[in-house]
Protein backbone atom coordinates (compact mmCIF):
# COMPACT_ATOMS: atom_id res chain seq x y z
CA UNK A 1 0.00 0.00 0.00
CA UNK A 2 1.08 3.49 -0.75
CA UNK A 3 0.02 6.89 0.58
CA UNK A 4 0.11 9.70 -1.98
CA UNK A 5 0.13 13.06 -0.26
CA UNK A 6 -0.28 16.48 -1.84
CA UNK A 7 0.75 19.54 0.16
CA UNK A 8 -0.26 22.94 -1.25
CA UNK A 9 0.23 26.52 -0.05
CA UNK A 10 -3.01 27.90 1.39
CA UNK A 11 -5.00 30.27 -0.80
CA UNK A 12 -4.22 33.11 1.61
CA UNK A 13 -0.46 32.55 1.32
CA UNK A 14 1.68 34.20 -1.36
CA UNK A 15 3.06 31.72 -3.88
CA UNK A 16 5.79 33.64 -5.72
CA UNK A 17 7.06 30.42 -7.35
CA UNK A 18 3.67 29.80 -8.92
CA UNK A 19 3.45 33.41 -10.13
CA UNK A 20 6.90 33.26 -11.70
CA UNK A 21 6.17 29.95 -13.43
CA UNK A 22 2.89 31.36 -14.76
CA UNK A 23 4.79 34.30 -16.26
CA UNK A 24 7.35 31.93 -17.79
CA UNK A 25 4.61 29.80 -19.34
CA UNK A 26 2.93 32.89 -20.76
CA UNK A 27 6.18 34.15 -22.21
CA UNK A 28 6.56 30.74 -23.91
CA UNK A 29 3.26 31.38 -25.61
CA UNK A 30 0.92 29.23 -23.50
CA UNK A 31 -2.41 31.02 -23.60
CA UNK A 32 -5.49 30.93 -21.38
CA UNK A 33 -3.71 30.17 -18.12
CA UNK A 34 -5.26 31.67 -15.05
CA UNK A 35 -3.08 30.66 -12.11
CA UNK A 36 -0.19 28.37 -11.20
CA UNK A 37 0.37 27.20 -7.66
CA UNK A 38 3.28 25.02 -6.64
CA UNK A 39 3.20 22.51 -3.81
CA UNK A 40 4.76 19.18 -2.89
CA UNK A 41 3.95 15.59 -3.67
CA UNK A 42 5.03 12.95 -1.16
CA UNK A 43 4.79 9.16 -1.43
CA UNK A 44 4.95 6.93 1.63
CA UNK A 45 5.25 3.17 1.20
CA UNK A 46 3.22 1.40 3.88
CA UNK A 47 3.75 -2.05 5.30
CA UNK A 48 0.03 -2.65 5.13
CA UNK A 49 -2.62 -2.98 7.78
CA UNK A 50 -6.06 -1.72 8.59
CA UNK A 51 -7.10 1.02 6.14
CA UNK A 52 -8.82 3.18 8.75
CA UNK A 53 -5.81 2.99 11.05
CA UNK A 54 -3.49 3.88 8.17
CA UNK A 55 -5.71 6.87 7.27
CA UNK A 56 -5.43 8.08 10.84
CA UNK A 57 -1.67 7.56 10.90
CA UNK A 58 -1.02 9.42 7.65
CA UNK A 59 -3.34 12.24 8.69
CA UNK A 60 -1.35 12.63 11.89
CA UNK A 61 1.93 12.55 9.95
CA UNK A 62 0.61 15.30 7.68
CA UNK A 63 -0.42 17.48 10.60
CA UNK A 64 2.72 16.92 12.66
CA UNK A 65 5.46 17.03 10.06
CA UNK A 66 4.65 16.72 6.38
CA UNK A 67 2.70 19.99 6.23
CA UNK A 68 2.70 23.19 8.24
CA UNK A 69 -0.98 23.99 8.93
CA UNK A 70 -0.14 27.70 9.26
CA UNK A 71 0.73 27.98 5.57
CA UNK A 72 -0.27 24.72 3.89
CA UNK A 73 -3.23 22.43 3.22
CA UNK A 74 -2.86 18.72 2.49
CA UNK A 75 -4.84 15.83 1.06
CA UNK A 76 -3.94 12.19 0.50
CA UNK A 77 -5.07 8.87 -0.85
CA UNK A 78 -4.06 5.39 0.32
CA UNK A 79 -4.09 2.57 -2.21
Amino acid sequence: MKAKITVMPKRTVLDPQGKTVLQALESLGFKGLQEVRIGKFIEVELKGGNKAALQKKIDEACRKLLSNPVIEDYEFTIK
Partner: protein
Amino acid sequence: MKFGILQFPGSNCDQDAYHVCANVLGQSARYIWHKESALGDVDCVVVPGGFSYGDYLRTGAIARFSPAMQAVAKHAQAGGLVIGICNGFQILCEAHLLPGALIRNKRLQFICDWVRLRVESTGSPFTNACQPGQILRIPIAHGEGCYFAEPAVIKELQREDRILLRYVDNPNGSVDNIAGICNAGRNVYGLMPHPERASEAVLGSEDGRLIFESILRSVVAA
Protein backbone atom coordinates in the same frame (compact mmCIF):
# COMPACT_ATOMS: atom_id res chain seq x y z
CA MET B 1 25.21 35.07 32.77
CA LYS B 2 25.17 31.80 30.85
CA PHE B 3 24.35 31.46 27.16
CA GLY B 4 23.70 28.09 25.50
CA ILE B 5 24.07 27.96 21.72
CA LEU B 6 22.31 25.12 19.92
CA GLN B 7 24.09 23.25 17.15
CA PHE B 8 22.22 21.26 14.52
CA PRO B 9 23.74 19.54 11.51
CA GLY B 10 23.79 22.50 9.12
CA SER B 11 23.95 25.33 11.67
CA ASN B 12 26.48 27.88 10.44
CA CYS B 13 26.06 30.95 12.66
CA ASP B 14 26.68 29.08 15.91
CA GLN B 15 30.31 30.15 16.18
CA ASP B 16 29.49 33.80 15.46
CA ALA B 17 26.86 33.74 18.22
CA TYR B 18 29.32 32.04 20.59
CA HIS B 19 31.96 34.66 19.79
CA VAL B 20 29.61 37.53 20.65
CA CYS B 21 28.41 35.93 23.89
CA ALA B 22 31.83 34.80 25.10
CA ASN B 23 34.30 37.29 23.67
CA VAL B 24 32.37 40.49 22.97
CA LEU B 25 30.07 40.36 26.00
CA GLY B 26 32.53 38.38 28.13
CA GLN B 27 29.87 35.98 29.42
CA SER B 28 29.84 32.24 29.90
CA ALA B 29 28.79 30.37 26.74
CA ARG B 30 28.63 26.75 25.68
CA TYR B 31 27.44 24.80 22.70
CA ILE B 32 24.46 22.45 23.02
CA TRP B 33 24.47 19.61 20.47
CA HIS B 34 21.04 18.85 19.02
CA LYS B 35 21.05 15.37 20.57
CA GLU B 36 21.41 16.69 24.12
CA SER B 37 18.16 16.49 26.02
CA ALA B 38 19.16 18.76 28.91
CA LEU B 39 20.24 22.38 28.67
CA GLY B 40 21.90 22.60 32.08
CA ASP B 41 21.70 25.91 33.89
CA VAL B 42 21.71 28.28 30.90
CA ASP B 43 19.88 31.60 31.24
CA CYS B 44 19.37 32.16 27.54
CA VAL B 45 19.28 29.73 24.63
CA VAL B 46 20.44 30.96 21.23
CA VAL B 47 18.96 29.06 18.29
CA PRO B 48 21.42 30.14 15.60
CA GLY B 49 21.16 30.67 11.87
CA GLY B 50 22.11 28.21 9.17
CA PHE B 51 20.42 25.43 7.29
CA SER B 52 19.51 22.90 9.96
CA TYR B 53 19.02 19.45 8.42
CA GLY B 54 19.62 20.99 5.01
CA ASP B 55 16.28 22.85 5.22
CA TYR B 56 14.70 19.56 4.09
CA LEU B 57 10.90 19.53 3.77
CA ARG B 58 10.54 23.07 5.17
CA THR B 59 13.01 25.37 6.93
CA GLY B 60 13.17 24.35 10.57
CA ALA B 61 10.70 21.48 10.16
CA ILE B 62 13.05 18.65 11.15
CA ALA B 63 15.07 20.55 13.76
CA ARG B 64 11.90 21.11 15.72
CA PHE B 65 11.78 17.43 16.73
CA SER B 66 15.36 17.17 18.02
CA PRO B 67 15.88 16.32 21.72
CA ALA B 68 17.48 19.73 22.31
CA MET B 69 14.38 21.51 21.00
CA GLN B 70 12.16 19.54 23.39
CA ALA B 71 14.38 20.86 26.18
CA VAL B 72 14.14 24.39 24.73
CA ALA B 73 10.34 24.17 24.79
CA LYS B 74 10.46 23.24 28.49
CA HIS B 75 12.95 26.03 29.19
CA ALA B 76 10.62 28.50 27.43
CA GLN B 77 7.56 27.26 29.31
CA ALA B 78 9.43 27.83 32.56
CA GLY B 79 10.05 31.45 31.52
CA GLY B 80 13.65 30.98 30.35
CA LEU B 81 14.94 33.24 27.56
CA VAL B 82 15.20 31.96 23.98
CA ILE B 83 16.39 33.92 20.97
CA GLY B 84 16.11 32.45 17.48
CA ILE B 85 18.07 34.13 14.73
CA CYS B 86 17.21 33.55 11.05
CA ASN B 87 16.96 29.73 10.78
CA GLY B 88 16.48 29.84 14.55
CA PHE B 89 13.38 32.03 14.04
CA GLN B 90 12.09 29.54 11.46
CA ILE B 91 12.64 26.67 13.91
CA LEU B 92 10.82 28.50 16.74
CA CYS B 93 7.82 29.05 14.44
CA GLU B 94 7.79 25.40 13.37
CA ALA B 95 7.97 24.44 17.05
CA HIS B 96 4.95 26.67 17.77
CA LEU B 97 6.96 28.64 20.31
CA LEU B 98 6.19 31.63 18.09
CA PRO B 99 3.14 32.12 15.86
CA GLY B 100 3.20 32.25 12.05
CA ALA B 101 5.72 30.95 9.55
CA LEU B 102 8.57 32.15 7.34
CA ILE B 103 8.00 31.53 3.66
CA ARG B 104 9.91 32.12 0.44
CA ASN B 105 10.95 35.75 -0.15
CA LYS B 106 8.46 37.62 -2.30
CA ARG B 107 10.89 38.05 -5.19
CA LEU B 108 12.34 34.56 -4.74
CA GLN B 109 15.99 35.63 -4.40
CA PHE B 110 18.21 34.77 -1.48
CA ILE B 111 18.97 38.22 -0.03
CA CYS B 112 22.30 38.92 1.65
CA ASP B 113 22.42 42.62 2.50
CA TRP B 114 22.47 45.28 5.17
CA VAL B 115 19.02 46.46 6.22
CA ARG B 116 17.68 49.16 8.48
CA LEU B 117 15.37 48.06 11.28
CA ARG B 118 13.17 50.10 13.56
CA VAL B 119 12.91 49.13 17.22
CA GLU B 120 9.15 49.12 17.75
CA SER B 121 9.10 48.03 21.37
CA THR B 122 11.74 48.29 24.06
CA GLY B 123 9.54 46.44 26.55
CA SER B 124 11.24 43.08 26.19
CA PRO B 125 14.35 41.29 27.48
CA PHE B 126 15.72 41.50 23.92
CA THR B 127 15.33 45.21 23.18
CA ASN B 128 15.49 46.96 26.57
CA ALA B 129 18.94 48.44 25.82
CA CYS B 130 17.56 50.16 22.67
CA GLN B 131 15.74 53.47 22.38
CA PRO B 132 12.12 53.44 21.19
CA GLY B 133 12.10 54.02 17.43
CA GLN B 134 15.86 53.54 17.20
CA ILE B 135 17.10 52.53 13.76
CA LEU B 136 19.50 49.56 13.77
CA ARG B 137 21.75 48.62 10.87
CA ILE B 138 22.05 44.82 10.80
CA PRO B 139 22.52 42.35 7.90
CA ILE B 140 20.05 39.77 6.67
CA ALA B 141 20.91 36.57 4.76
CA HIS B 142 17.92 34.44 3.88
CA GLY B 143 15.81 32.93 1.14
CA GLU B 144 12.78 32.22 3.34
CA GLY B 145 12.34 35.33 5.45
CA CYS B 146 8.87 36.47 4.43
CA TYR B 147 6.90 36.45 7.67
CA PHE B 148 3.33 35.21 7.29
CA ALA B 149 0.47 34.82 9.74
CA GLU B 150 -3.30 35.08 9.43
CA PRO B 151 -4.73 38.60 9.94
CA ALA B 152 -6.14 37.70 13.38
CA VAL B 153 -2.65 36.69 14.54
CA ILE B 154 -1.10 39.88 13.17
CA LYS B 155 -3.73 41.95 15.04
CA GLU B 156 -2.92 40.09 18.24
CA LEU B 157 0.82 40.75 17.77
CA GLN B 158 0.10 44.45 17.21
CA ARG B 159 -2.30 44.73 20.14
CA GLU B 160 0.09 43.02 22.53
CA ASP B 161 3.12 45.05 21.39
CA ARG B 162 4.90 41.86 20.33
CA ILE B 163 6.38 43.16 17.07
CA LEU B 164 9.78 44.17 18.39
CA LEU B 165 11.50 44.96 15.08
CA ARG B 166 10.23 46.13 11.70
CA TYR B 167 12.07 46.59 8.40
CA VAL B 168 12.30 50.24 7.34
CA ASP B 169 12.34 49.07 3.70
CA ASN B 170 10.65 45.68 3.51
CA PRO B 171 13.08 43.43 1.58
CA ASN B 172 11.17 40.15 1.49
CA GLY B 173 7.40 40.76 1.53
CA SER B 174 6.91 40.15 5.27
CA VAL B 175 3.41 40.99 6.49
CA ASP B 176 3.35 44.36 8.29
CA ASN B 177 7.13 44.73 7.66
CA ILE B 178 7.78 42.29 10.50
CA ALA B 179 11.45 41.47 11.14
CA GLY B 180 11.15 40.13 14.70
CA ILE B 181 8.41 39.09 17.14
CA CYS B 182 8.17 37.72 20.65
CA ASN B 183 5.74 35.32 22.32
CA ALA B 184 2.98 36.38 24.71
CA GLY B 185 5.28 35.76 27.69
CA ARG B 186 7.92 38.02 26.05
CA ASN B 187 10.67 35.48 26.84
CA VAL B 188 10.95 33.92 23.35
CA TYR B 189 12.15 36.10 20.49
CA GLY B 190 12.65 35.35 16.80
CA LEU B 191 14.18 37.65 14.22
CA MET B 192 15.44 37.21 10.66
CA PRO B 193 18.34 39.75 10.81
CA HIS B 194 21.70 38.64 12.22
CA PRO B 195 22.67 40.75 15.27
CA GLU B 196 25.67 38.44 15.86
CA ARG B 197 27.14 39.60 12.54
CA ALA B 198 26.92 43.25 13.57
CA SER B 199 28.23 43.36 17.12
CA GLU B 200 31.68 44.84 16.55
CA ALA B 201 32.80 48.02 14.74
CA VAL B 202 35.26 46.02 12.64
CA LEU B 203 32.30 44.22 11.05
CA GLY B 204 30.67 47.46 9.90
CA SER B 205 28.09 47.91 12.65
CA GLU B 206 27.81 47.46 16.39
CA ASP B 207 24.02 47.83 16.47
CA GLY B 208 23.38 44.09 16.86
CA ARG B 209 25.21 44.09 20.17
CA LEU B 210 22.26 46.01 21.67
CA ILE B 211 20.16 42.86 21.35
CA PHE B 212 22.71 40.78 23.28
CA GLU B 213 23.26 43.58 25.81
CA SER B 214 19.50 43.74 26.38
CA ILE B 215 19.51 40.03 27.23
CA LEU B 216 22.47 40.48 29.57
CA ARG B 217 20.83 43.46 31.25
CA SER B 218 17.54 41.63 31.86
CA VAL B 219 19.26 38.51 33.26
CA VAL B 220 21.57 40.49 35.53
CA ALA B 221 18.65 42.61 36.76
CA ALA B 222 16.50 39.54 37.49
